[in-house]
């Protein structure tokens, strides 16, 4: 039986966490639920559709490059790639609808409480966290132990970048899919805008959200390496969670809501799959990270020399 008095594994924290109230966890539910199965499925489908969209869309953006032309041949030509791209886009749209549903759920169930404890909206605390991290990055202070609530600043940043980017990509993509229909109400220049936005937004999404943000924070961040397992397992050991997100933990304890957030850890079989997945996905992430980094450097180089 795990209790919160079990020593928290030291992950290089320079600042000791505050003393926490002792809580006895009953039964086998030793893990804190970070994501619901619904959220994890949405994430899975976003992952699949996003990768597909990138793989079928990027050769069109860089159609003058030899790699794009040969890759387009591999995936069966423009017509085929377009079909796959639109199919993946529909999955992405479905995920977007799920997220809107979540937004509406908060509106109805929590009476529109988008702000307050555990919010996804950026707060001054996020700014202070970022400042503390940057100060550590440049060597001006020891590593801070962030007093995180439910979401860290980098998770909020990613959520809003992904939501905003996804909305723009869906709207512009729909215009490019049905240009004649769009032109019934909108002027033709909107199709030009859609082209610029869809193409620029794709690079932005791929580079920023995936390379410089998501893959880093979910896989390559020192605390997460090789993979932040919460999205696969649904949760993480309570001690780790209490160490990582002390603010939310303390609030839940005070409100007596902690018990409702506890889940059982993965089964033996689930753990076995998880270990395989860790290294497969993290290996893939590392590989993609290397490729994307080269790609982004190459794009930046082209962009600079283009002037």
């Amino acid at each position, binding site marked *: 039986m795990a209790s919160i008095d079990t020593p928290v594994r030291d992950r290089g924290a320079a600042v000791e966490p505050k003393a926490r109230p002792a809580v006895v966890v009953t039964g086998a539910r030793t893990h804190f639920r970070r994501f619901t199965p619904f959220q994890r499925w949405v994430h899975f489908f976003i992952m699949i559709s996003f990768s597909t969209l990138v793989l079928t869309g990027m050769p069109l953006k860089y159609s003058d490059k030899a790699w794009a032309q040969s890759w387009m041949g591999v995936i069966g030509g423009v017509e085929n790639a377009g079909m796959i791209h639109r199919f993946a886009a529909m999955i992405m749209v479905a995920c977007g609808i799920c997220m809107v549903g979540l937004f509406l759920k908060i509106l109805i169930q929590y009476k529109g409480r988008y702000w307050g404890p555990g919010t996804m909206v950026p707060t001054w605390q996020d700014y202070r966290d970022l400042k503390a991290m940057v100060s550590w990055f440049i060597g001006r202070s020891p590593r801070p132990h962030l007093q995180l609530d439910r979401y860290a600043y980098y998770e909020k940043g990613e959520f809003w970048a992904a939501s905003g980017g996804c909305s723009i990509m869906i709207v512009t993509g729909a215009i490019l899919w049905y240009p004649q229909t769009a032109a019934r109400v909108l002027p033709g220049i909107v199709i030009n805008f859609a082209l*610029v936005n869809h193409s620029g937004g794709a690079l*932005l999404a791929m580079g920023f959200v995936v390379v410089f943000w998501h893959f880093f924070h979910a896989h390559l961040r020192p605390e997460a390496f090789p993979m932040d397992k919460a999205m696969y397992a649904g949760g993480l050991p309570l001690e780790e969670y209490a160490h990582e997100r002390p603010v939310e933990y303390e609030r839940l304890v005070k409100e007596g809501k902690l018990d409702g957030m506890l889940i059982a850890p993965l089964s033996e079989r689930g753990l076995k799959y998880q270990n395989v997945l860790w290294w497969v996905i993290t290996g893939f992430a590392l590989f993609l990270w290397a490729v994307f980094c080269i790609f982004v450097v190459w794009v930046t180089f082209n962009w600079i020399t283009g002037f």
Partner: protein
Amino acid sequence: MSVRRAVLVVLGAALLLLTAATAASAITFTIPTGKTDRCLQCHGKPGLGTVNVNGVEKSLTIDTDAWHQSMHSRMDCTACHAGFEGRDHTPDETKGWYRQAKLTACSDCHSSEFKMYDQSFHGNLVMSEGSTKAPACGDCHGSHGIIDPTTQKFRATIPQVCGRCHGDKESTYLDTYHGKSWQLGDLSRAVCTDCHGYHKILPQSNPASTISKQNVVATCGKCHPNANSRFSSFMVHVDRSSPRSSFWVWLMEMNHALLIGVLFTLGGLHCVLYFYRGLREGMYRRGKH
């Protein structure tokens, strides 16, 4: 005349014929009977030199393989190069002759195409204004290696053919979905001629043009059934990198460039520094799961 003598005469004549035939076959080896082959004896050889036509150096060597594969390979050279005698000739002698071949050689057989061309912007420049830069038949179709313009092989070359003079239009075309598909090997999307026409190409200001205000919706409508005038106001040839092409599109493009530049720099710094600190403080070694 005795029988013996008659036999001798016949045998002698046969021998003579045989010798003549052998001699003739030996001659065809050096002096071909077909006019084309006779020309290619010299003009099929590489390094024959060049001739200056309208300020452009053109090789006197004909690509023999391309010629044999071309639509006109069964015709004689003189069918187009009319009035030309198969004898020794100097470049000076044939100077004015290239222009003539360039125009009337084609119209002799392709009169309806030539009539359309004659009414076109290009045709007007060449026929009425005597322009030496505007294209005549051969500038788009080629001369000796003419291939069937209804084939995919020809279609695949169209943007490059037009781009030889309209380079800026080619590059902006390649920045659209049509052009990108074409570049990726899909020839079913629109190329230059699908919108602008081919023999009778007219400027947008001419009401008879395929892209004039009166006709452009119908032209788009060939592939986009529900096209309306707003749809047709989509700017195909817009250079994103220039504010003079379309200010708003340029502004949006610059906005993206700025956003990508700033976010990639900041995000990249955040990751790289985080990674560096993590390595230095041994967090990756201790953080094993």
